[in-house]
């Protein structure tokens, strides 16, 4: 259980990566942008991959009536997420420490993992909902109004995951370093839960053996 707890603590700590590295990255490439424009989505705001990418993306998006990329203070998520992640790190470390001192069983680890997974899914859902709004809720005075072949107005929601062609742009949306660190961390906590469960099993077996021997 001691090893499992150490793993649990390390796993939770890996979430700290989200404070330093982007969670998600969206790149927009086109023939006239040989150096693609890109945005890195952090838990506390959106930054351009290059210094002026956001300004240039906004400049392009105003043709089709998209809102400008939100500043941190324009979305509640960017003030809330750091607390949520910070809280989960704290909780994970506490759970790990309690496991280390045998105050808590591996079930505590599983509980943390489940909460984190639910929060993660909610986060993805929220992110996707924002992108739908961003890509479909267009300014009615937009300079360009483009229709799909069936006559419905074109929408510009970037893909949640993977690649999509949007007008002249190739848009690629993928998890970034922060997300990989989070995935790694969550895998470690899952591993910790498994190890905790295994070590509990062996402990019981050992006790049984002892009992039989006695």
């Amino acid at each position, binding site marked *: 259980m001691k090893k499992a707890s150490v793993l649990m603590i390390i796993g939770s700590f890996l979430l700290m990566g989200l404070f330093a590295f982007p969670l998600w990255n969206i790149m927009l490439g086109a023939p006239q942008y040989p*150096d693609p424009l890109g945005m890195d989505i952090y838990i506390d705001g959106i930054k351009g991959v290059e*210094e*002026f990418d956001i*300004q*240039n993306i906004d*400049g392009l998006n105003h*043709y089709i009536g998209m809102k400008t990329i939100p500043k941190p203070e324009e979305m509640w998520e960017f003030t809330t997420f750091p607390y949520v992640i910070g809280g989960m790190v704290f909780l994970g470390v506490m759970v790990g420490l309690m496991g280390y001192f045998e105050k808590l069983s591996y079930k505590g680890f599983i509980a943390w993992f489940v909460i984190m997974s639910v929060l993660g899914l909610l986060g993805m859902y929220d992110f996707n909902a924002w992108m739908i709004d961003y890509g479909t809720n267009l300014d009615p005075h937009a*300079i*360009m109004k483009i229709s799909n072949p069936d006559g419905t107005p074109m929408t510009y929601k970037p893909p949640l995951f993977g690649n999509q062609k949007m007008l002249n742009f190739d848009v690629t949306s993928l998890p970034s370093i922060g997300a990989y660190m989070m995935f790694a961390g969550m895998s470690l906590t899952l591993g910790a839960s498994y190890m905790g469960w295994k070590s509990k099993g062996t402990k019981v077996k050992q006790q049984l053996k002892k009992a039989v021997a006695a």
Partner: protein
Amino acid sequence: MKKYTYLVLGLLGFAALLNSCGNGNQGKSSSGALNSSNAEKVYVAPGEHDEFYAFMSGGYSGNLTVYGLPSGRMFKEIPVFSQFPTSGYGYSEETKPMLNTSHGFVPWDDSHHPDISQTNGELDGRWIFINGNNTPRIARISLSTFETEEIIEVPNSAGNHSSSFVTENTEYVVAGTRFSVPIPQRDMPINQYKGNFQGSLSFISVDPEHGHMDIKFQIIMPGFNYDLSHPGRGKSHGWFFFTTYNTEEASTLQEVNSSQNDKDFIAAINWKKVEEYVNNGGGTKMPANYAHNVYDESTHTATTTMKKEVVTVNPLDVPGAVFFLPTPKSPHGCDVDPTGQYIIGNGKLSADLTIHSFDNMIAAIEGKKFDGEAYGIPILKFEDVLAGTVKSGGLGPLHTEFDGKGNAYTTFFISSEVVKWKLGTWEVIDRKPTYYSVGHLMIPGGNSRKPFGKYVVALNKITKDRYLPVGPEMEHSAQIYDISGDKMELLYDFPTHGEPHYAAGIPAELLAPKSKKFYKLADNKHPYATLGAADAKVERDGKDVHIYMSTIRSHFTPDNIEGVKVGDKVYFHITNQEQDFDVPHGFAVIGANNSELLIMPGQTKTLVWEPKQVGVWPFYCTDFCSALHQEMQGYIRVSPANSNLELSWSLGD
């Protein structure tokens, strides 16, 4: 064993993959087995980049043009000594000071010899220098912005031709006078030229950090014509060599009268000695009047300072610093090989090349083996300094460049050819015709210890039938030869703008990575900058109206201005808010008596407009900036001079 084979095959496959997609030069390199055609050697596929930048002087266009080699594609025209309505250089308020001189505003010159800055005798790609021949000036151009940043006028000089070559660490850029003149200038009979006119050789120091130029000293020489020059390098670093003609000091019909002496001179100058003399307080401070124009990248603005003094040096006061090397038949080109050992003087009226040896010269100086003197300056014995002669069989040798592999290439103007010969043995290896009348030639890194001897470019004076005729005048022609093999091979020719007098080349990899993509708005210190659209405004100061205007795709802020009156002087100060590579906006207003502006991202430029007629006058963006470029426009209302209308401006309602 089998595994091992797979591994090797895998690696080979990987290597093949790298080659096929990673390297743009693949297919252009001529392999031994496949004798690729000349077309392939100059073909640069769409989207791929050239291997070299070539900076060709524009001669009488006063500009410097940037080409790619081997494709011959032109990338940019950099205005240096000429007004350039394309961008507003020399028309905008910020750049007008660049063309100030002691003769007033001189909006043209004859730009001849570009030279790229060096460190330890190798190209470093910081700046390129070029001379203005007519109203003597030296310009420095940044190789990150490809804009002219500084121009210094050279007093006591006329026909600034033996310029602008740099020493091994860009300590100095020289400006030698082609015409000797009265120094200081005065009213005197022209036929008293002999003994009264003098020639100045100016050594202009270059600040190693920001490149700022300053005339450190001028050596006042006898009244010959100082035609061309090159710095020593390696062992001869610290010396500079100048060819002369008209050592006869004729003042009329020079075509005949200055061609009487069988030998003129190459003047060898030990500038380190003169520098030391000046640093120790030597030289004479002479009153002078010359302009020093500096463009500041953060204010996007040039300023002129008139300088009032120059340090002159009499060569007789610095013994051991100046010598004459007799050189036959009115030598033109003066070229020093990459090792610094050989000084090549090409007698433009002869068939032969004269090569002097630096070692022989030093030995002759040390042995005091002089053959008389000219105005007190020792003349060395021709035979003592001579290293060899190239018996070429061509006519009118002008200029020589080197491939760094022991070969030299000399142009022959009269017989229109490039002749390849070997340094040391002086034997001719190859000769190829040019079309036609070649002047200079250029090998990238030509004036350095490390030439990149893959191509030579011949810069021809006459074009005639090379391209479709376009009336009596044709643009001049450049020709590129492959010199990677034993024999030269003519690959391609292409027209160039102006007179491609001389050129400087540099590998693209030394420049491209540090080329600026846009100016940062946050660093814009222009006093009339509009850093955000919210700061746009219009202010009146007497009869001056200052419009602080911003541009972004696809509108001006403000787009409507009222309250301007006939007789006002309207300053449009326009700031481009874009922060993206290659997104300029243009500006033009009806009836402006100057030009348009092209404003780079993050830059501020000012156009003066003096309305003379009442009306509502449009202005618009001239650079097709976006799908809504055509809508990028506005109006300025001009009321009668006695109108009481207050200034107002707007964008939207």
